[in-house]
């Protein structure tokens, strides 16, 4: 058996008490300094909550005031997506000259499959889609997560090819 000298025994006890007191001093500091509190009051600060503009919440397609978007239906986003989140459905439109022109009917977006990797936005040649800063995506029914990005009756903006 190892015999501990009395002097070491006593210095051990005092060293231990000192190390414990250091920790207790630190917690007491935070106990008395409520300004250090870092938690946010989430549902209360919803109105003042500002997310950075690059935050990847969900894919949206911006429309202007004439209900026009910039999507040409090139399918670059559909190809870029690793999860099959985006599906482009076409329809044939007649141009004023009477020619048939391919245009998007629906751009279906499956939010439930999306991993917010931003590859579709990067791939888009005409900046038709972007990431929105929303994050409260919970719904009661999974079918609600399948979204159509283009507004009903919308058409492609002039000059976007």
């Amino acid at each position, binding site marked *: 058996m190892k015999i501990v000298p009395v002097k070491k025994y006593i210095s051990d*006890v005092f060293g231990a008490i000192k190390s*414990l007191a250091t*920790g*207790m001093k*630190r*917690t*007491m500091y*935070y*106990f008395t300094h*409520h300004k*250090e*509190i*870092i*938690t946010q*009051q989430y549902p209360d600060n919803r109105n003042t909550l500002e997310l950075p503009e690059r935050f990847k919440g969900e894919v949206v397609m911006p429309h202007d005031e004439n209900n026009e978007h910039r999507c040409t239906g090139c399918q670059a986003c559909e190809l870029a997506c690793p999860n099959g989140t985006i599906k482009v459905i076409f329809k044939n439109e007649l141009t004023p000259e009477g020619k048939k022109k391919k245009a998007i009917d629906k751009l279906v977006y499956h939010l439930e499959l999306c991993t917010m990797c931003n590859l579709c936005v990067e791939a888009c040649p005409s900046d038709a889609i972007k990431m929105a800063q929303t994050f409260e995506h919970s719904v009661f029914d999974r079918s609600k997560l399948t979204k159509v990005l283009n507004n009903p009756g919308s058409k492609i903006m002039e000059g976007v090819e």
Partner: protein
Amino acid sequence: MPSFYEIADQLHSWLNANFNPTWVLIIEMVLAGVAVIGLFAVLGLVLVIMERKVSAWMQIRLGPNRVGPKGMLQSLADTVKLIVKEGMTPSGADKFLFNLAPYIAMIVAMLLLAPIAFAGNFQLWDINVGVLYVSAISSLSVISVLMAGWASNNKCSLLGAMRSGAQIVSYELTAGLSVLAIVVLAGDLKISAIVASQSDGWWIFKGHIPAIIAFVTFIIAVTAETNRAPFDLAEAESELTAGFHTEYSGMKFALFFLAEYVNVFIVCALGATLFLGGPMPLHIGNWEGFNHAMDYVPSSLWFFGKTFFLIFLIMWFRWTFPRLRIDQLLNLEWKYLLPISMINLLIVTAMAILKWHF
């Protein structure tokens, strides 16, 4: 302002005037029982919210702040949740012991309240071996833990219970020796006599350094005895999921939870009574004016103030320190606390004989 003692006295004489002595005894017992259960409920609610707020502020959080003003009713809402929750009994469990264990934990806690002096001259039972009674009964609480751990038929619970057994048996010794130091100084086991002996100053001041050492060892030992962190090996969340109460749910779990907090309250009340003068106000030597002003503060306020200070101390430990390992826990007791408190007791005895204390 009427004191607790006067209210109890008036009630006693009114009952004696209207009923025969047997009925008076029965009515007083029922009243005391109701008061104890009421105190339990209030203590549970207050201590849980206190613990949550203390932990939150130490962890730079806000803590509960939704139910009631500043979240003060949070523990009430939790209680309602626990009451309506199903109390499961595992199919492999020893049903009788499994269901009995939480009640034993509660009964032990209730028994311990009897000799505590809540205010001047206000006690349920001023037994002449009060301190011995508290030491004896508090070691019974290990039975409920062992029972719960054994009956759960769960290996984690069993390990937790066995740890708790080793732990409480060891730390009883130090707690007892630290208490004995004050008993030696006061010369009495009776709680009211110990309180009376501190009318000219608390023992922690009158007893010089040995009393402070006894106080420190007492606080460490009772923290271990009540299974609180850093000695919460019986529960040890990260090792044994929840230790002896892994299988408990609903109200049966709540009883264990409540018993833990009431035990904390009781050991702190005992510490406050023995070392900090219990209901006695703070008196300093010959400062007549100061002493007189202190006498105006009700004795119950003194008692609860001191008790809650000690409870805060124990909570402070819990939210600062990591947990010990089982062998280190026993090392701490047998290699450090026990020798220190034994030598300390010798010094205190010499002091008492030579009248070195104030």
